[in-house]
């Protein structure tokens, strides 16, 4: 048997920077951050954008407006717990709400694929109407484009939203401070698993439904307790982990989570085990994380638990001096590990 020598070792050269857009650039992970930092920010640089929050906060004639936009390309169009229409309303309402804003008006732009059945389009639009009414927002302007068959996948929707931010609310991802508490409004991973189960044709004992919901009334209830909440985010693409990593990076602090405190439904856990996924990286569409000063944490938590969308709210961790820029987790066994931001999408492991 030959002896293996160090000089025989063979390693690939690292790949050069990306020449083309990869799917991972849309994953909400490191590649997405890279895209924003390297392509968009240098060109569009301005103070409102530099906050890098889910919405811009703009002062116009003394009014503080929250302004945001989001595009929806979900496949399948209809899934347990929602569809692309309700998601397009909830997503933009939530991006406004994470700035503490009362959402007011939405735009809706549709990119439709040639050949799309009207029945499908009507169903989506009806669902948008219902979601908007329930959230108390109006769709006040819009646009439609039709592209050749194959140029898009049935329907893509963009919604833009405007809302009003109450005085005294200054939430931003760079405001977390050591000692603050990390609050989570409920169980994670439901939206991502609902979509994946539908796409892969997986059957579970009970159907896992998307948590898609408009969170602005929950946010309002939390701000009733104190307007001095440091920051809120809804952990959508990239899951809880990516959201907390963004906050840790922007505030230059560490975040330490307690694994036992993070609620995950049993069926979601089971699906994740089966699919080789970690629920910390799976998308949510009706959950929020809030960074709250320690002295206000109990009262804010109580307000969350009194709201239908925050019944399962928990304190899941705290902000630390240590490990600035990193999210770590105290595991169920009492050890500590990193909860990293993924480069791209989560990939199932081979075995």
């Amino acid at each position, binding site marked *: 048997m030959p002896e*293996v020598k160090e000089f025989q*070792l063979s390693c*690939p050269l690292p*790949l050069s920077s990306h020449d083309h857009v990869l799917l991972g650039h849309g994953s909400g992970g490191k590649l997405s951050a890279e895209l924003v930092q390297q392509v968009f920010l240098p060109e569009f640089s301005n103070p409102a954008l530099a906050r890098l929050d889910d919405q811009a906060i703009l002062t116009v004639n003394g009014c503080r407006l929250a302004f945001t936009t989001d595009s929806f390309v979900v496949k399948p169009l209809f899934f347990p717990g929602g569809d692309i229409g309700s998601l397009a309303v909830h997503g933009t309402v939530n991006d406004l709400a994470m700035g503490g804003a009362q959402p007011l008006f939405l735009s809706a732009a549709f990119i439709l694929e040639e050949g799309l059945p009207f029945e499908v389009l009507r169903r989506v639009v009806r669902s948008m109407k219902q979601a908007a009414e329930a959230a108390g927002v109006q769709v006040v302007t819009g646009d439609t484009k039709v592209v050749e068959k194959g140029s898009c996948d049935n329907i893509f929707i963009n919604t833009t939203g405007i809302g009003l931010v109450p005085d005294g609310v200054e939430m931003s991802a760079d405001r977390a401070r050591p000692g603050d508490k990390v609050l989570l409004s409920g169980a994670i991973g439901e939206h991502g698993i609902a979509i994946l189960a539908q796409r892969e044709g997986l059957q579970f004992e009970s159907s896992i439904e998307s948590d898609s919901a408009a969170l602005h009334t929950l946010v309002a209830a939390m701000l009733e307790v104190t307007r001095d909440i440091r920051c809120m985010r809804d952990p959508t693409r990239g899951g809880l982990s990516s959201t907390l990593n963004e906050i840790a990076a922007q505030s230059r602090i560490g975040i330490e989570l307690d694994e036992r405190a993070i609620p995950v439904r049993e069926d979601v856990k089971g699906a994740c085990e089966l699919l080789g996924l970690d629920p910390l990286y799976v998308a949510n569409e009706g959950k929020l994380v809030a960074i709250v000063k320690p002295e206000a944490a109990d009262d804010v938590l109580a307000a969350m638990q009194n709201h239908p969308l925050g019944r399962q709210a928990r304190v899941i961790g705290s902000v630390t001096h240590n490990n600035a820029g990193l999210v*770590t987790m105290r595991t169920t066994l009492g050890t*500590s590990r990193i909860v990293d931001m993924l*480069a791209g999408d989560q990939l199932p492991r*081979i*075995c």
Partner: protein
Amino acid sequence: MQYIDEYRDPQIAHALVAKIVKRVSRPWVLMEICGGQTHTIMRYGLDELLPPQLELVHGPGCPVCVTPLEMIDKAIALASRPDVILVSYGDMLRVPGSHSDMFRAKAAGADVRIVYSPMEAVKIAQANPQRKVVFFAVGFETTAPANAMAVWQAKELGLTNFSVLVSHVLVPPAMRLLLSQPANRVQGFIAPGHVCTIMGYSEYEDLVHEFQVPMVIGGFEPLDLLEAVLMLVEQLEAGHAKLENQYARSVARAGNVQARMVMNTVFEVCDRKWRGIGSIGASGFRLRPEFAIYDAERVFGMEEGGAEEPGECISALVLLGQKKPPDCTAFGTRCTPENPLGAPMVSAEGACAAYYRYRRHAVDRQETECPK
């Protein structure tokens, strides 16, 4: 979650750790072979719980990591053909070849699809008779039966547009190479539970006998691994060298006879190159001659061609347990999961990637607390 939570119970874990602490009287170096086991150790921070005398080093059992560069290059070349649909397990897509990876090939127009089972690749071939479907058949003995079954089914169905790019490797030859190294430090092994579920454990008994080294077949949950460590420590402290089976709920002595039958019908043993290590004799599978029409390398005339892998990192020493990931100067700086320099950083199951992903904060802390 029933049948999972039982194997993650903190109280039992700490009881096992207490037993290990009590039993250890001097330093021992243990190796877990399988990448899935490495992943669990890092994810749960099991090494943090063990007494300092026990050193866990991480073995070569990450199939994604050790798939040679030229096979990745071939997969990318096939995927880039307009007439081909390349079907793969998910975590192969991010692995860099000489110049690209499959994600980049996909962005440039290649039709690359991820599946959980090779049978799905057969279905894709049935559904796309005008296209050529190639399944990238990688892995250890664990994935070999299912990959063999896909070829078998394709034959039964009379498919003419299905083939497999085979890069299968076998665990025991790599362990034999590792144990034959004069610089070998490993004194006890946690053998790969899922490989043994298929293969049974007579091959491992041979290794135990040949090298007089203790071995415990271990599972993949935290309690499996802690129990396997305890069993190894008991053996080492008592001066025994035998094969024990911790993962008895899955592994039988004879393994899975039917799975092996399919595997041996379709595949035969051959020499294979391991990324980061080099060629190892009789360490892999290729298709038997009677299944040659399903061999993508033959179908597309790609038998020739290797890729020179320029050497910089210490991956062979990591894969053979002689060094640990943080011993490498490039670890976490020039070499990260986004830009891997070597085999163990390319997949989540690779030792370097697992360290980076879960433990780099502890690595830093160790360095500041214990300056060398």
